């Protein structure tokens, strides 16, 4: 898809600029699959580093080759133990910073905590906290993929390149789903309608939107009804307010807006983790007459017993990319298929190292994607 010069002939690293070092900050060897593929494509060796947990569960990083004056790329895929993953990355970044690396570029295909990117009531915006921590540790550039919300780029004070997996997923649809012309792209909630539309536009298909799953966003207990609060006696500026009774929000029945009868339904989303909502969507789509159901997502977290639930469900195939390792889940559920995206990450690394433009990697990507 991208015309990447093959390693033998072309992709020669610009050694005069101080060179490049590629590290994986994972202590978990199953997470290193993607880094190995990237290194292979770039034709470089992985940098020598030891990342391990000490007996007291603290993470220790030992970098065993010089990084002074070099472009350091740290590839970190998120393992089951997400907080350890973050600590490993931060410690590694800081280690490189204090060892005088010229620039430290994080390659984090799946940005953890990206769903906690808005303030709900008095909750924390964890994505922002994480972004601040990474900047503080010494990261100078971040390469990531399909951020849950593109606005997360603004949480950082460093450049962020948000690559897209959609060209690979679209290619899969066109090559592996024989009757994809008879498909309809489905958003399993109104929040992912935008993404569905961007897929539908490029495949020239219709869309449908499902609505009505249990939404927890509004169910928090409403407080502050009494102003001033009844307990404390704070002098109010304004006369105290009489508050009308709160009418509880009715949970709407599941509705599908758009026609799926007699069609292949392709549910698209960015993350597939907890599969309950996908299963409910699949059930509804089957009832409405969809004869095949595919799920496409960039990040396949597939935690807890997701593989088993998918195996038993009406979903025919779940297609995810290898931003997150999911070998174990695949063994449990042959319905899970993987699309390799190491090519775009390695190309991004090559271009950043050589100071070339990245816009080629964003061609054919809609504004809504």
């Amino acid at each position: 898809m991208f015309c990447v010069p093959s390693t033998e002939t072309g992709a020669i690293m610009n050694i005069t600029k101080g060179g490049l070092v590629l590290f994986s900050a994972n202590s978990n060897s199953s997470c290193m699959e993607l880094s190995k593929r990237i290194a292979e494509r770039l034709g470089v060796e992985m940098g020598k580093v030891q990342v391990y947990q000490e007996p007291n569960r603290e993470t220790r990083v030992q970098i065993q080759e010089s990084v002074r004056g070099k472009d350091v790329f740290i590839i970190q895929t998120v393992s089951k133990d997400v907080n350890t993953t973050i600590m490993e990355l931060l410690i590694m970044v800081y280690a490189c910073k204090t060892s005088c690396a010229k620039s430290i570029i994080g390659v984090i295909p799946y940005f953890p905590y990206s769903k906690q990117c808005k303030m709900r009531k008095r909750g924390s915006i964890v994505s922002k906290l994480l972004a601040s921590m990474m900047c503080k540790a010494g990261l100078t550039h971040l390469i990531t993929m399909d951020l849950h919300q593109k606005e997360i780029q603004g949480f950082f004070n460093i450049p962020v390149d948000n690559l897209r997996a959609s060209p690979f997923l679209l290619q899969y649809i066109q090559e592996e789903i024989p009757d994809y012309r008879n498909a309809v792209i489905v958003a399993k909630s109104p929040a992912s309608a935008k993404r569905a539309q961007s897929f539908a536009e490029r495949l020239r298909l219709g869309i449908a939107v499902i609505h009505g799953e249990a939404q927890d966003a509004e169910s928090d207990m409403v407080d502050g009804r009494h102003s001033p609060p009844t307990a404390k006696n704070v002098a109010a500026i304004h006369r105290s307010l009489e508050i009308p009774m709160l009418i509880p929000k009715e949970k709407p029945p599941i509705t599908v807006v758009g026609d799926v009868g007699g069609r292949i339904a392709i549910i698209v989303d960015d993350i597939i983790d907890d599969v309950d909502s996908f299963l409910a969507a699949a059930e509804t789509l089957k009832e409405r007459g969809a004869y095949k159901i595919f799920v496409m997502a960039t990040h396949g977290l597939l935690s807890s017993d997701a593989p088993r639930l998918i195996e038993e469900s009406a979903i025919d195939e779940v297609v995810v990319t290898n931003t997150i390792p999911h070998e174990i889940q695949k063994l449990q559920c042959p319905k899970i298929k993987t699309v390799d995206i190491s090519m775009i990450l390695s190309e991004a690394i090559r271009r950043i190292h050589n100071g070339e433009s990245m816009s080629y990697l964003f061609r054919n990507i809609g504004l809504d994607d």
Partner: protein
Amino acid sequence: PNIVLFSGSSHHDLSQRVADRLGLELGKVVTKKFSNQETSVEIGESVRGEDVYIIQSGCGEINDNLMELLIMINACKIASSSRVTAVIPCFPYARQDKKDKKGAVERWSRAPISAKLVANMLSVAGADHIITMDLHASQIQGFFDIPVDNLYAEPAVLQWIKENILEWKNCIIVSPDAGGAKRVTSIADRLNVEFALIHKERKKANEVDRMVLVGDVKDRVAILVDDMADTCGTICHAADKLVSAGATKVYAILTHGIFSGPAISRINNAAFEAVVVTNTIPQEEKMKHCPKIQFIDISMILAEAIRRTHNGESVSYLFSHVPL
């Protein structure tokens, strides 16, 4: 500390309404421009140790108003006020919240995140707290390192629908693009009605976008809902689409009515029953030229947020209710 309320020059009417509601006088401030167009601000009363609120909306001469706000914040800060809160009903540059934008020729991904820049500027000027309304993307809250209260116009919008559209139980809420689907479903759920959405489809390359309506609007009152309307091209096309799909009446409800360029003439020519906006941006002038524009007053939401913030009370009640 006492509360001191200042108004920038962008939207004096709204500030006055907020002040009236709180039973306060607006603080004395003179904003003017030097002959070289530099903004000058003189705070006309003591703010030492006080809790200062500055109301300034991002509208009209955006850059002048932003600069004026920054200077006012800084003036109050260095005059030893205990806390400075910027009340920005319509946050400027909120649409420039991500790196990729559609350019004139091609899509490009080196657009500035100007909303983040504005956030940094406000913090650097000395703002301790921001109160705003219906941010274009709520993630903008995360662009700040200071507390941001993002108020919703939704409760006021729901109230308006119930009071002004007789047939609201038989209405359908429509999003003019796929991105607004979530906002629309929230309103549809609260009214217990259905929703539809319009998405753009390109059947062939090099062909103009075609609008496709997903959902059934036949013989119903269609209410288009979005967070802002600028040139109104999309919502006017959407209105035509809804009428041709059999909607009996078409309303549009938008939080921020910017209405620049050809917006007014487009609305006049479109099939709207009414275009309803809130007064986060002054609307009097536009209402003279376009009788279809109506506004919902949201000053009481801002006033109540200011009062509660000053008293250290919870603000979350305002996310789902209109204060009386």
